[in-house]
Structures are given as structure tokens and as C-alpha cells.
């Protein structure tokens, strides 16, 4: 299982790692119980600071995607429906929709884009 990190991505590295792992969980590529590589290994593989990876893992842990078990490291947590305030979930959606409208996309264009992204996320077996 591989995660791709682009050279033109403006997000902080820890965010790219956390978002990438979340996307793989959403697609079902990282099932419950999968052990993630250690912070040291990820830092060495990417040539980045240990703290950067630790921040990404901590974020995943705080959001309930990953459980840190003593001796086993970071493990993908069970996918139980998370109790999140619907208003909280709408915030990033509204931000993204605003950006798309300001970029000049039409409503059908945005709907098509959302459908494609959703299909991509639901596509199992995709390693990217």
C-alpha cells in the first residue's frame, strides 16, 4: 500500500500524510487492524523530521482513525460511525463549494466533479 505525496501540494507535510491515510481508510485499502509503519520508519523513508510524522499520527489518533497500542504501534481503528455535529461537517464542504463557484465552475460541473471524487473514494483496491 502506497501513499503519494506531490511536489506541488501546498498543504503541510503532516496534513498530506494524515489526509492520504484517511483517503486510504475511506477506500477500504487500509482495513481495521492494519499496522502502520513506525514514526521513525516514515520519517526515514521520506527524509523528514520525526515530529512531522508524529503530528500526523497524533491527528489521526485524535480523530479516531488510528489507535496507538503499546508494543504494536499505530493500528487502524475500527470504523464505527463517528458522532460528529452535521454543522461541523458542512463547514469544509461549504468552503470547498465556495472556492469552486469562485473559480467559475457551473453547478452541474461541480456536481459532476463531486460524483467523480466520490466514485474514486469508493473504488476499492486502488493503491493510490
Amino acid at each position: 500500500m502506497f501513499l503519494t505525496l506531490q511536489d506541488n501540494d501546498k498543504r503541510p507535510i503532516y496534513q498530506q500524510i494524515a489526509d492520504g491515510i484517511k483517503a486510504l481508510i475511506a477506500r477500504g485499502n487500509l482495513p481495521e487492524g492494519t499496522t502502520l509503519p513506525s514514526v521513525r520508519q516514515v520519517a526515514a523513508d521520506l527524509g523528514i523530521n520525526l515530529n512531522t510524522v508524529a503530528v500526523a499520527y497524533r491527528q489521526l489518533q485524535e480523530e479516531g482513525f488510528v489507535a496507538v497500542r503499546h508494543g504494536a504501534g499505530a493500528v487502524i481503528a475500527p470504523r464505527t460511525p463517528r458522532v460528529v455535529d452535521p454543522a461541523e461537517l458542512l463547514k469544509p464542504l461549504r468552503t470547498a463549494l465556495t472556492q469552486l463557484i469562485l473559480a467559475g465552475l457551473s453547478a452541474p460541473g461541480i456536481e459532476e466533479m463531486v460524483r467523480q471524487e466520490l466514485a474514486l473514494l469508493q473504488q476499492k483496491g486502488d493503491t493510490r
Partner: protein
Amino acid sequence: MNAPTTTELYIVINILVVLALVYSLVKFAWNHPLRHGPGYFLNVEVPAGFYEGPGKSWLGGYRAILVAVYAALAVALGACFALGRLDATPLWLGGWALLYVPALVVFQAWTRYKLGANPPVRPVALALESRRLGDYISWPLEALLATAIASSWWMLLGPGGTQSDWLNAVQLTWFALGLLPARIAAVRSTNPLPVERTEEHYRYQDATRRIAVSVLSALAWYLVAILFGMGLRHAWSPARTVTILQWFIRGGALAFGGYCIVLMFHGQRRLASMGRDLRPAGSWSTPFRRAPWIGISRPYLIWFAIWFGILLVLIVYSLFR
């Protein structure tokens, strides 16, 4: 049938080592810059048609260095034979390695400086699979190795019928013990994975680690077999008097040495076939780090310098004491 003498053993070892070095030159070192295909020279990406143009002289320069280093080896070997110092194998082999490795490192640095000073930045892939030392290193076998070393010293330090060559025993022990950190370094070594043919690059890196660990383990067993043989000869009189036992003890050590050489060449062949057309680590930078020169971290390099330095001092001291 007589027991093998030390001189006969050194003749066999010298012949084996020379054959291995010549085979390595012909089969691997000669075309080493092309091991990732015609798109690369050593670890640097080169334009199409490079080998019809300036690549010819670059390849010629590389091969000239190889010939010079191997000529120095032939002179050193000839001198040892002429002086009757067949036991100087560690010295000429170590001295040759000291010439060979820096010569190639300097040439590679020069190549990188002239041909690929600014490698392109490309997206990078991250493997989400755990790598643990236990996946590569067998701890029960390591414990057995440590037990064999401890038993050898227990026999050597006890009463016995031979004059123990302490310096030789210390050399062998230091050499063998130092190979465990070397194996750990091999497992921990890592290079960025490109987003194209990621799986193949991942498997290539994994094979590199496994081959390095198996060769270093076989080398450690070879050294410990010699040490154990010394202990046995010292502490157990049949090991000094029964011919078949002497053959067994010395032949066993040589078998480990031969196995190590076979593993090394088999591994090199496998890596050569796996690595064809794959992007070498030094030919590109990731968004987060520059193209690596070598895939070993600084602490391990410092450790290597200390380990190899002390080993060299022990070898040179043993020859001139």
C-alpha cells in the same frame, strides 16, 4: 591423508578470493554504471544517446580506474607471494578495499557534480508497510552466533594444548560482532520511492536489504567458524591430532566463506535483473529531501568508520608486531 597445513589453507583462501574478485570485475563492476539501463550513468540520469557521445569517455574513465585498482591488487598480491607472506591476505585485501571504495566514491561524486548536480524534483510514494528488524534478522540465529563466540572464548581462555593467538581471536571477534550493526544498518537503509513503478522499486529495495543481511550473516558465520575452530584446537586434543577432525574444522569454515561468496554473486545477479530500468535513488530529489548519495544514515557511517578503523589497526599491528 595428512591434515591441511596453515600454508595450504592460505593458498586455497587466496586463490578463492582472487577468483571471486576477478569474477566480480568481469560480471558486475565492468558494466556497473549501466546497471539501471542506458538512461543512467552510475546514479545520474543522462540524456538519450549519451553513450554514443560523451558517455564513451565517462565509461572509459570509469573502466580505467577499475583497471588501475585491479593492477595495484595484482602488484600487492605478487609482492606477498614473493615475500612468502601468504598469511597477509587480510592486509592486501583490506588495503585493496581501502583503495577501491574511495576511488569509486570519488569518481561517483565527480560524476554527480559534472552530470547531475541538480537532480529533478519528483513526487514521492510512501510505503505503508511496517519494516521490523525481526522481518530480516533471525534473532535465534544471532543468539546462536553469540553463543558460539562466547563458547570459543571459553575454550580459548581455559587450559589447552596450543599457544593461543590472542590478537587473531580479538580480530575475528571484533570483525564478527561489528557485522550485527552492519546488518541493522542494512535493514534501516532506505531510499525514496518514485510514484512510477512503485511496487517494483519497493521490491528492489526490499531485496537489497535481504541480500545484504544474508551476505553479512554468512560472513559473520565464516569468521565465527574460524574462531570456534581455534577454540576447539586449543581445548580439545582430538581436534589437533585426528586428521579427519582437522579437515572438518577447517573445511567447515571454508564452506561458510564459499557460501558467503555464492550468496553475494547470486544477490548481485538478482539485483542486476530486478534493477534494470528502475530509477536509481541518487537521480532524483523528493519535495522533502535532496537526492541521497548513499542510503546510510550518518550515525551508522560514524560507527562504520570506528569499527573499520579499529579492525585495520588490529590487522596492521598483527602483521608488523
